[in-house]
């Protein structure tokens, strides 16, 4: 009996593949043992369950209530996941001890190749923490008395967090007062680097606390944290604040800047490529030119009779104030007239990066000159006349 566990998507339902479908000879013994163990464990709901559709005529209230996962259930899922991970490692011939999540993903993609476009619809195998939404354990004991002292506020985690943060703030201020009293107070304020990290967003905080928050609550919390971080803090407080910050990758570092190349005459030039819809363009920008642009061997005035296209070509140069200084030779194919113009614009912007300082590259990126336009033609769907347009609705 195979005990390979695969979960699909973030849905709450789960499936078990029964039957000897997995045809790997290795580890059969292990599997049998594991399956037998599963079979023998009492209260095991897994074996018999098949995914059945409940056909009701009335609204199924029970089904609509959010499925609650008990703590035991989650624990069992985690165990099964770990066992399944080891089986998978065995199947792939890797070492089960050092089998990471990326390896799991790769193995699943190999074993279950899927042609679906939506990445979230493909088979995945992840730790149950990531699949099942976090739910709160029962908050009160057998006598009905809640565990947390702030339970009756309704939002115990949020208020306890605020309480903790404010406590820390008071501690810091007390410490400061004491130092000032002793005269050892030094005005050092080390500024935490604001760039490179950001506060948690509201959704992330909600996920962390497993509670619904309102905008005002969130704003209040962030203000408190800012106040705390403005004061000179200890390592403990730093670590507390650090829990609520996420790092932000600096976008501009991703842009590769090609070095300048020199052709046989000694002229500096730089190449770039660009795409837009189906058009592809390759561009060579030469230095010390006179603003001449040649597209597929033809002057750009003849190739793009429409002014809008020429304005697109002008944009990178105009932005960098280098209108008459470069010569451009480019080849472009595919697409239509505006797509070709957009492709050449992207390619020239990328080529110009080599001629220009890092700041100006960052400005270009913020202006949107270096981003490839992801819009493509949407497919026509059956039952509709076009991508969005429906057939004329006739009443009868």
């Amino acid at each position, binding site marked *: 009996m195979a005990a390979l566990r695969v979960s699909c998507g973030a849905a709450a339902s789960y499936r078990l593949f029964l039957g000897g479908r997995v045809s790997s000879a290795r580890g059969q013994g292990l599997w049998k043992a594991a399956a037998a163990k599963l079979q023998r464990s009492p209260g095991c709901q897994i074996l018999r369950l098949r995914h059945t559709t409940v056909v009701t005529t009335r609204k199924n209230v029970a089904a609509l209530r959010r499925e609650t996962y008990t703590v035991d259930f989650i624990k069992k899922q985690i165990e099964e996941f770990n066992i399944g991970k080891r089986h998978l490692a065995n199947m792939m011939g890797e070492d089960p001890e050092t089998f990471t999540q990326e390896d799991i993903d790769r193995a699943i993609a190999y074993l279950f190749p899927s042609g679906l476009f939506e990445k979230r619809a493909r088979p995945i195998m992840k730790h149950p923490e990531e699949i099942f939404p976090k739910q709160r354990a029962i908050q009160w004991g057998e006598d009905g008395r809640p565990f947390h002292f702030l339970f009756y506020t309704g939002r115990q985690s949020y208020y306890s967090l605020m309480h903790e943060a404010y406590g820390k703030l008071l501690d810091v201020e007390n410490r400061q007062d004491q130092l000032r009293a002793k005269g050892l107070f030094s005005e050092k304020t080390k500024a935490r680097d604001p760039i490179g990290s950001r506060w948690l967003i509201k959704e992330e905080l909600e996920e962390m606390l497993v509670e619904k928050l309102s905008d005002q609550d969130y704003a209040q919390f962030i203000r408190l944290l800012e106040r705390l971080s403005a004061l000179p803090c200890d390592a403990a407080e730093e670590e507390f604040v650090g829990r609520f910050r996420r790092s932000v990758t600096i976008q501009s570092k991703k842009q590769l800047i090609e070095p300048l190349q020199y052709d046989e005459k000694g002229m500096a030039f730089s190449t770039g490529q660009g795409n837009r819809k189906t058009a592809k363009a390759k561009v060579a920008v030469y230095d010390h030119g006179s*603003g001449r642009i040649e597209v597929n061997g*033809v*002057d*750009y*005035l*003849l190739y793009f*009779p429409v*002014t809008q296209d*020429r*304005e697109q070509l*002008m944009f990178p*140069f*105009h932005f960098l*104030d280098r*209108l*008459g200084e470069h010569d451009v030779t480019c080849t472009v194919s595919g697409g239509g007239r505006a797509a070709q113009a957009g492709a050449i614009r992207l390619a020239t912007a990328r080529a110009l990066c080599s001629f220009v300082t890092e700041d100006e590259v960052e400005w270009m990126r913020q202006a949107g000159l270096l981003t490839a336009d992801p819009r493509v033609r949407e497919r026509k769907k059956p039952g509709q006349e076009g991508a969005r347009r429906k057939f004329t609705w006739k009443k009868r």
Partner: protein
Amino acid sequence: MTFELDPGRFLHIGTQAPQCLAAHLDNQVATESPRAISRTSENDPAKHGEQHEGQHYNISFQDLKTVFSHGLPPRFVMQVKTFNEACLMVRRPALELLHYLKNTNFAHPAVRYVFYGEKGTGKTLSLCHSIHFCAKQDWLILHIPDAHLWVKNCRDLLQSTYNKQRFDQPLEASTWLKNFKTANEHFLSQIKVQEKYVWNKRESTEKGSPLGEVVEQGIMRVRNATDAVGIVLKELKRQSSSGIFRLLVAVDGVNALWGRTTLKREDKSPIAPEELAFIYNLRKMVKNDWQGGAIVLTVSQTGSLFKPRKAYLPQELLGKEGFDALDPFIPILVSNYNPKEFESCIHYYLENNWLQHEKAHTEEGKKELLFLSNRNPGQLERLCAYL
């Protein structure tokens, strides 16, 4: 470079210094006010020289009404109406042609000059410049504003009265005769017809009567207009060699004469250009078997039929037949503005308060316009036009 002045043509030099002091004049021009960059006060095309290159000169309203009643491109006419003045830029191709015209030997057969170039570079206006020069020199101007108009979009085609195989175009012919009359009023009484022409049972023109009568006949009897045009062309060609007058044949879009037409007979079969009486006569006119004048032509793709957009060379636009018919000719390339001319054009627009954008005065604005139009006069005009 000095121009050889034809004796008896230029009676007075004018207010400006003589042309041999061209270099000195350049300095003078530079130190004068900025107005002098784009304009010149020399309004006689005969005196235009290299020092005027890039500058605009004024055409008087009188000349506009007579000489250019039908010759100017429509966008230029709109610009004239807006600015309330007609200013034409002096450019190198036109200057070259004027130089040739000034030095023509009228005993030799008429020389053909062909302006060619990309779309919007200024061929038609260079042609108009040379027509203005000839008009001032008192030549007889035979100007066909756009030969393409004759080979397309003709509503009424009549079978020719003169020759059964050919077709007449009464409306276009009568309009052209009217314009021709306004342009060359004073010549029409001087030139005498050398043959008798019978129009129909009741009307005929006697030998020795002035050409004006033929023109009147054509205007009044629209049915015979095309034949009247044919007669005018024949007589002018015959008599220009005699030396009474100089004849300038100016045709814009001459590649229409040898291309294809979009006109069809009643049975939907296409008509070749030579089956149109007007085209047939015009072809005879453009042949260089007569003396006493010059033939100035333009080839243009803009109105042409069945020619690719990128074609601009005479060989491509005229086709084999046309090229052989026109061979030999002197080709003159009309290209985009050079930087000086571009500056001058921008100045002209700024002076007339035509460019209202605040950046138009600055260097960046000029660079933008330069880039967007690539120094093409037509494109620049369209860019600067109203929305």
